[in-house]
């Protein structure tokens, strides 16, 4: 009965709005109480997810004594505002090595991410649009590889790289980062759906070679998937911890994740001069800003894209 009542007003819908709108509007009419409940639930979730970041932002403005016993407590600002002096201290501590770490992280993420994306786009296109010998065998192998835990490869990779003298060089981080079976899988699935064979055949009939067909016809259509794969691989390399931890020991080559972790381990070990809590916190704060800003400003690119793999 209750269902019939709101239905009566559907025909009187003035401009014949689509079904989506009608459903949503009805929702709002009937589930008024539920919507408040939903919003409260959302607020609770937001507080849970955002509190650690708020803490980080606040803590980055404190000096070491403020971190331990700030006047406003851990979740509010101290009397003194030390963000800029902390940042200045980051330039001085160990000769400003923090900024080098941050630069390394950028460099590894960009080279590894872009490289992995290029390989994935090419391979995805090859798998999706050509029926070459051995294609299915290789692709099943690749699907199996998606399920190989990448960390299980770290120690063998370390041993292999040390045999050819590449350990403790930038290549030890960049080259293994180029491997992205999941990226290839995504690109294949997307290419299959987004590019009709007829389009490619038409280009060929018009005399375009295989490469030209790929670059001028296929590539522009693949843009959404390319952005997604690029984002996933850049974030993956930026996040990587186990691999650089294992293959790098030269402090000048470390990415910011490993570097900050070393500072934290030293500070906890307790050696007086090594306690740099304020630098760890400020360093962590500065290092998360670029990616947060990137994600917030590139919303329209990643929001649909992250679900690509499930479009099966």
């Amino acid at each position: 009965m209750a269902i019939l009542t709101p239905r009566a007003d559907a025909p009187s819908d003035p401009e014949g709005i689509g079904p989506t709108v009608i459903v949503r509007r009805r929702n709002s009419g009937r589930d008024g109480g539920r919507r408040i409940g939903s919003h409260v639930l959302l607020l609770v979730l937001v507080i849970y997810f955002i509190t650690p970041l708020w803490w980080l932002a606040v803590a980055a403005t404190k000096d070491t004594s403020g971190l331990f016993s700030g006047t406003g407590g851990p979740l509010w600002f101290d009397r003194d505002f030390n963000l800029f002096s902390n940042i200045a201290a980051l330039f001085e501590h160990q000769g400003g090595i923090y900024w080098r770490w941050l630069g390394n992280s950028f460099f590894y993420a960009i080279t590894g991410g872009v490289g992995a994306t290029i390989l994935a786009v090419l391979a995805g296109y090859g798998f999706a649009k050509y029926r070459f010998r051995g294609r299915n065998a290789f692709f099943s192998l690749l699907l199996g590889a998606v399920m190989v835990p990448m960390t299980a490869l770290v120690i063998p990779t370390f041993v292999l790289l040390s045999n050819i003298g590449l350990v403790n060089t930038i290549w030890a981080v960049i080259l293994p980062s180029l491997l992205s079976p999941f990226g290839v899988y995504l690109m294949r699935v997307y290419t299959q759906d987004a590019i009709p064979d007829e389009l490619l055949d038409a280009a060929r009939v018009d005399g375009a070679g295989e490469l030209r067909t790929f670059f001028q016809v296929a590539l522009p259509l693949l843009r959404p998937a390319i952005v997604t794969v690029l984002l996933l691989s850049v974030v993956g390399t930026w996040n990587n911890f186990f691999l650089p931890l294992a293959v790098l020991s030269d402090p000048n080559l470390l990415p910011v994740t490993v570097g900050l972790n070393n500072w934290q381990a030293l500070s906890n070990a307790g050696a007086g001069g090594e306690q740099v809590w304020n630098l760890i916190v400020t360093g962590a704060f500065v290092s998360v800003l670029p990616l947060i800003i990137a994600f917030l400003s590139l919303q329209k690119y990643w929001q649909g894209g992250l679900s690509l793999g499930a479009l099966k």
Partner: protein
Amino acid sequence: MALTTAANAKKALSPPRRAPRRTGIDRMDRKRQRWGWLFVAPFGVVFLTFLVAPLAYAFWMSLQTNTLATGTTFTGLANYVKAFSDPIFLGGLGRVGQFALIMIPAQMIVALVAALVLDNLSTALSKFSRLMIFVPYAIPVVIGALMWGFLYSPRFGPATDIFGLIGLAAPDFLAKGSIFASLVNIVTWQWAGYYMIIIYAALRGIDPAIYEAARLDGANGRQIALRVKVPMISSSMVMVLIFSLIGTLQFFTEPQVLRAVAQGAIPVSYTPNMYAYSLAFSYSQFNYASAISFSLGIVVFIGSYLFLFVTRKQSGLK
């Protein structure tokens, strides 16, 4: 009779079953298909060098044993026999198994509830919430773990103040008894938003006319959510589950980072990956470490394969 059999036999012998005649176009087409290899080749090289080769090499190393007395000797599967009867490795496997049982449902529930709620709303607050819930994904795992380490710490964290408000003593999040829950919390915080976005995008892909139909049939909001929406996004859910299963079984970064803060609560061999790491880099037992890595890889591989097999109906994979 004899003729037909001969013809059949000949047919069966000739390798490519298709193409009764080889025309010029056909040959050109086959030539063209070879371009596929060129497109796949660059990835193929990386695949061979950084996946197949390390795996093969790890396997080879794991078949050997290096001792001071005898040097490196071939010992067959001895390292695997050792690994699968090594209480430390088995303990680590059991622990990541427990993590999988608790952590995956925790992440899934948070992600699914958030996605279902967000799917019903289109207010400014809901858009804002969607972004905020997702933001931890942009934080490197190490930084997330460092941050929570500070928050858990009785010296830096707000727990003392918050529990003080209601007159309670704050629990020690970094003690032996609570470190498990503390780690579950970090991982849930870090990943639930990412999974939420995947599930949310899948929900947005459903035609709302279906809800209309369900509503006409008398379904209420909750029934629509559980009986209509969830089954329709099952392939995304399976994907999310596989991601989190693989991630959980290779648990490394969070406990490794928290180890320094939670002195004593996290041993060096807390998870199989941490065990392999310390075997390799603290004790230089690369052969045994390779066996551990390889065993973990096999366990993860079989585990996720089994999972995909069990859920093949939901995921739509063949």
